[in-house]
């Protein structure tokens, strides 16, 4: 990447502090963002990255400190204030009107449109923006027809249309496929060369390494700001966690034995009765981690749902520990000791208004161990929560703080704590490390290996191919609802995996048992 020639500070943050009760989410944070730079915020879950960006775009008001934008102290009382000054935010959960067209969504709410939309003028502006940033999108399609990645572009275009000079992206690639992520980064560098500044929050090191500078946060404080060019992924990680992260590898002396989960020709329909799973067959043994590699949206989600009993298989079936499972419900699967980490944590895994304690027993609220007579045993829940908060290092003000207020990664830890506690025998994990910081991801990997050693069968879907390669005994690749092949990591290269994920079928004899 070409370095910006003029070093000019667009944004200066001085001693910004934001507290939530006793927790200082940001504690005297100072930060400079130059004109035309991609500035990355990096740090553990709960370090305060999202809170900082929320203060910068006017969602929260800092308790103290100063935000200087373009040389003037900015008084940000609402996102509208921020946008007026030129600070835009792309939300992880988009706020688009789904039956408006792309163009309408971009221009709605802008002051120069007037009562009657002057679309031709607006269209000219938007087309010019698209060209400058290299965004290729049909302005007349309606939002619901777009992929998640394209919806994100619309959010970006909207901010740019409103004249944003600083764009904040909070974990923008968490919901994107690798291809979409690459496209996003092309757009980011396009914006950068136009002189726009970007604050990027990410836990993925390869994305962090594409920025110009990185500010590392730990427990609400700035640890350091470094030039990416002079750093390595390792040095940045070390700054973040304060020590080196060792990557765990599965213990090859423990051999998978004794078939536990076995699928035969499972087919299933999607939400619009399209075929999403086609003849899926595989087995997982005890002491085995089976990886599921694939680009998001190729049927992984539905496969997990079938195994969890929340989506019916249209044909085929599966058995667990030698017993055929007929027309299962999620209750039955939980009772059979299946642990499940869903990929959409707030939608499928948590009750946002409940605290950590109550969420830890979600699904087990009627289990005798958590009850005293007809009542939930609050004391026991409290004790359990305290133990798990410590064990999984959940950063939360109290066991009863609604989990919707936890940082993304900490919310994920609550789910992991619950599932690792209750699963017996089978663990289904769909993107368990998504949104987790480097150290926490490793912690999850370690826990998965612990379960493997304890004799669990584990199905692990992940976009992190490196993780799959070191954790899994075998890796199944899924493409358009079909298993393209099952391979052993030690006999496969990342390139092979990539080919299979793109639909290039392995020779059948390469499928290993």
């Amino acid at each position, binding site marked *: 990447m070409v370095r910006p020639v003029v070093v000019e500070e667009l944004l200066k943050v001085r001693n910004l502090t934001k507290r939530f009760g006793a927790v200082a989410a940001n504690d005297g944070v100072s930060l400079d963002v130059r004109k035309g730079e991609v500035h990355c915020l990096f740090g553990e879950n709960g370090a305060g990255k999202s809170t900082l960006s929320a203060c910068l775009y006017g969602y929260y008001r800092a308790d103290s400190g100063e935000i200087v934008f373009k040389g*003037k102290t900015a008084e940000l009382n609402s996102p509208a204030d921020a946008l007026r000054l030129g600070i835009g935010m792309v939300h992880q959960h988009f706020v688009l009107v789904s039956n408006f067209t792309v163009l309408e969504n971009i221009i709605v709410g802008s002051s120069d449109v007037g009562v009657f939309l002057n679309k031709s003028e607006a269209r000219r502006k938007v087309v010019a923006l698209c060209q400058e940033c290299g965004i290729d999108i049909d302005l007349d399609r309606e939002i619901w027809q777009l992929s998640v990645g394209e919806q994100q572009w619309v959010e970006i275009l909207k901010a740019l249309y409103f004249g944003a000079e600083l764009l904040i992206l909070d974990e923008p690639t968490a919901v994107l496929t690798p291809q979409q992520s690459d496209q996003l980064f092309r757009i980011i560098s396009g914006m950068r060369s136009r002189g726009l500044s970007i604050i990027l929050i990410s836990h993925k090191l390869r994305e962090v390494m594409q920025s110009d500078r990185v500010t590392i946060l730990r427990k609400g404080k700035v640890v350091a700001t470094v030039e990416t060019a002079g750093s390595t992924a390792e040095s940045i990680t070390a700054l973040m966690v304060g020590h080196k992260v060792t990557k765990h590898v599965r213990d090859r002396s423990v051999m998978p034995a004794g078939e536990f989960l076995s699928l035969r020709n499972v087919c299933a329909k999607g939400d619009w009765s399209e075929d999403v799973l086609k003849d899926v067959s595989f087995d997982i043994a005890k002491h085995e981690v089976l990886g599921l590699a694939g680009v998001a949206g190729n049927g992984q989600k539905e496969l997990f749902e079938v195994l969890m009993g929340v989506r019916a298989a249209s044909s085929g079936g599966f058995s667990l520990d030698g017993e055929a499972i007929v027309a299962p419900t999620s209750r039955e699967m939980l009772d059979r000791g299946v642990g499940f980490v869903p990929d959409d944590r707030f939608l*499928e895994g948590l009750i946002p208004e409940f605290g950590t304690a109550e969420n830890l027993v979600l699904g087990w609220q009627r289990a005798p161990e958590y009850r005293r007579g007809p009542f939930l045993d609050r004391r026991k829940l409290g004790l359990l929560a305290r133990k798990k908060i410590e064990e999984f290092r959940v950063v939360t003000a109290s066991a009863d703080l609604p989990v919707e207020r936890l940082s993304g990664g900490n919310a994920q830890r609550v789910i992991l704590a619950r599932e690792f506690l209750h699963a017996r025998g089978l663990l289904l994990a769909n993107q368990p490390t998504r949104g987790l910081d480097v150290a926490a991801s490793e912690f999850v990997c370690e826990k998965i290996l612990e379960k493997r050693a304890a004799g669990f069968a584990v199905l692990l879907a992940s976009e992190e191919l490196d993780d799959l390669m070191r954790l899994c005994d075998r890796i199944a690749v899924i493409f358009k609802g079909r298993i393209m092949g099952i391979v052993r990591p030690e006999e496969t290269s990342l390139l092979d995996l990539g080919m299979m994920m793109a639909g290039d079928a392995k020779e059948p004899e390469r499928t290993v048992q």
Partner: protein
Amino acid sequence: MISVQRRSGSSLGWNITCYSAAMICAFLTSAALLTFSGGDPVKAFSALLTGAFGSQNALYGSLAKATPLLLVGLGTVIAFRAKIWNIGQEGQVFAGAMAAYWMSLWVAPLPYWLAWLLIAIAGLVGGGVLGLLAGYLKVRFGTSEVISTVMLNYIVIYILAYLLDGGPWMESGLTVAYHQSSPVNPLLEWPILLGQGSGKMHIGFILALAAAAFCAVLLERTSLGYEIRAFGSNPTALRFRGTNIRRLLLVVMLLSGALAGLAGAGELFGTSHRLRAETLLGIGSSGIVVAMVGGLRPSGVMLAALFFGALKSGAIYMRLKSGTPAGLVSAMEGLVLLFFLCAAVATKLQLVRVEEKVHA
């Protein structure tokens, strides 16, 4: 400059401030409304107070008026906490009263305690079944409960009209229909605990208090309550985590309707002693208001029910004494609701003094 901002936690003092302000605003607007409609607010409000609290009997009368509101309010809380929008309380009150009346035609030969019990159960079942029906329509056909419960209100109210107007329950011995049934068997009337004459408090009040305690414990302490609250926050996660949410929805509608039905039975056997549409109309909708004003918490609903019970009971006296039109009382009820809803939003905000500075 003062600016308004989101508050990151709640504070008791601020909550009290907001709700007091809401009370004062409701009071002032009501006074303005009274003046505007040609009344004398001082006279009217003092009549209202006398009617509500002026004597022991007035007090008991207020408690009697609070009884059905509390029960309906609690039923509403159960449904609304699950974000199931049961607004068929009106019909469920009717159905409870009708089922209880029907039961009373059969149970006279039984020992009186058994007869009372059966009548109360009939009330619960009547309201509950109507709630369940709306729940079934939602589970089976995806019908919005907002629509189905309102439609069922009409159906039940018209069925009662048919039964009383030339139908089998018309007051016997009359040739002209008064749209009412014969009085219930005096032996089956619910016992009066306190008061006499116009202000009598029947055993239903105790039942309602017990129901409030029951609901508070149910929601906060039991597994079912956990599921009800979880359903309101995120039904998808609940479904993924092994709860049969269709059954849960049915249970919620059953409970919610049953409490409203009990209110109807109590009103019939404790207060009016005759099945008659006018005495039951409005209990359901006021009960919803009580639930909202009470912040969808059983304790809050108890306070709100007492307040609205006093308002309703005082209003009768106010109308007699100062000739204030009855519609104004409904308007006042609405105003209280409006300002309380505003206050509920205000409790989530804070005022902050902002210093304007210019960067050097």
